[in-house]
């Protein structure tokens, strides 16, 4: 008995910002260079009044077109762009989507590792008979945290949401997990103001990072070099640990999907972990880095394009903000 991903759908907001758009806004920023280094050509961004919950609702409606919503008995919403401090966004989702009131529901706050953690929690709920059919929504709108003049972060990140149905199944579709957490990295990917530690500062000073990007403490800050260092150190070890724990070798896997952070980093990590190019997914061309939605979007994309098929063994690995990381092997 186990937990298996049944269905995935995703939703990207309608407004698109292309590299050409960024080139016009930022002098010296070259559209081709952006694409070749980051792997991003365009990213979807929410409108002023559009929130992560709106995206979550749209992604959920899509997946529920082919799934009876009365079967869902637990819903999880992963986001770092909450609707309110309280109540949980997932409660609003319950009533908007017309789920039974007898469901369990919870929001949780994670970024790039969010899907892996959601899957781990869903598996736990299912195997302990707390739930049978879990809806896991990973929805993010980092663009709302990014300063308009932050060239680097506006290039990398995009908004989007994915809704994944995970069901109890006779055969185990989710392998053993390896998870990790290191708060030493907390200041390297952070929105300093706006929470309860440091309130939103209407007079926040502009900070120039010296390489073309402006932000204030009300905005997302990402220390690229430190985050890159973190991934170089943690991810290769994580891959080995997941393989070992699942008693599998790289050669036995059908495919590998890492959190889609940026093409350059992914290529480097691929070489370092010796994963063959043909087994490794890199695609953020039309989405940018959608944080907790990248992995489910990738899985859906691979299925739709026959890159993977039902029955394939796929290593999935998420890593980033927190620092937080995790990985497992799923049987599609």
């Amino acid at each position, binding site marked *: 008995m186990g937990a298996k991903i049944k269905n995935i759908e995703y939703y990207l907001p309608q407004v698109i910002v292309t590299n050409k758009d960024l080139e016009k806004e930022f002098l*010296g920023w070259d559209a081709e*260079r*952006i694409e070749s*280094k*980051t792997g991003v050509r365009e990213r979807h961004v929410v409108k002023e009044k559009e929130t992560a919950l709106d995206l979550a609702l749209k992604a959920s409606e899509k997946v529920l077109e082919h799934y009876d919503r009365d079967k869902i008995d637990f819903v999880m919403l992963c986001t770092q762009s909450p609707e309110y401090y309280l109540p949980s966004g997932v409660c609003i989702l319950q009533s908007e989507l017309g789920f039974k009131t007898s469901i369990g529901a919870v929001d949780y706050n994670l970024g790039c590792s969010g899907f892996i953690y959601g899957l781990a929690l869903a598996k736990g709920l299912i195997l302990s008979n707390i739930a049978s059919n879990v809806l896991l929504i990973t929805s993010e709108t980092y663009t709302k945290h990014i300063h308009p003049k932050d*060239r*680097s972060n506006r290039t990398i990140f995009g908004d989007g949401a994915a809704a994944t149905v995970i069901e109890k199944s006779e055969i185990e579709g989710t392998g053993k997990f390896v998870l990790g957490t290191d708060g030493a990295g907390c200041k*390297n990917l952070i929105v300093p103001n706006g929470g309860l530690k440091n309130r939103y500062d209407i007079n926040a000073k502009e900070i120039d*990072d*010296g*390489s*073309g*990007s402006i932000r204030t403490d009300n905005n997302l800050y990402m*220390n*690229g*070099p*430190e985050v*890159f*260092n973190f991934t*170089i*150190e943690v991810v290769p070890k994580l891959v080995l640990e997941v393989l070992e724990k699942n008693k599998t070798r790289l050669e036995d896997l059908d495919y590998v999907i890492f959190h889609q952070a940026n093409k*350059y*980093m992914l290529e*480097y990590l691929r*070489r*370092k972990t010796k994963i063959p190019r043909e087994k490794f997914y890199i695609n953020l061309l039309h989405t940018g880095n959608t944080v907790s939605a990248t992995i489910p979007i990738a899985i859906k994309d691979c299925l739709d394009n026959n890159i993977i098929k039902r029955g394939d063994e796929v290593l999935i690995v998420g890593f980033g903000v927190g620092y937080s990381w995790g990985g497992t092997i799923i049987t599609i």
Partner: protein
Amino acid sequence: MTRSEFIEKLRDTLEIDTSDEIAEETDLRSLEEYDSLGVLTVIAMIDEDFGKQFSSLDLEKITTVSSLMKLIGEENFE
């Protein structure tokens, strides 16, 4: 590797045009290729070729090519 090999590797890594001068005295910060994306490529190069990683504080102190070589460690170059 030799010092000049390192400079050529750096040129390759940062995708600096062959027509552009790059020597030990070149201030990296003046190169448009040494932006936030360029820094990542240098981090990867140092990890791959020297097995070293540096904190962003150390990387921020880099000025010229020779300051980068000093950070990596003079003993690594012939």
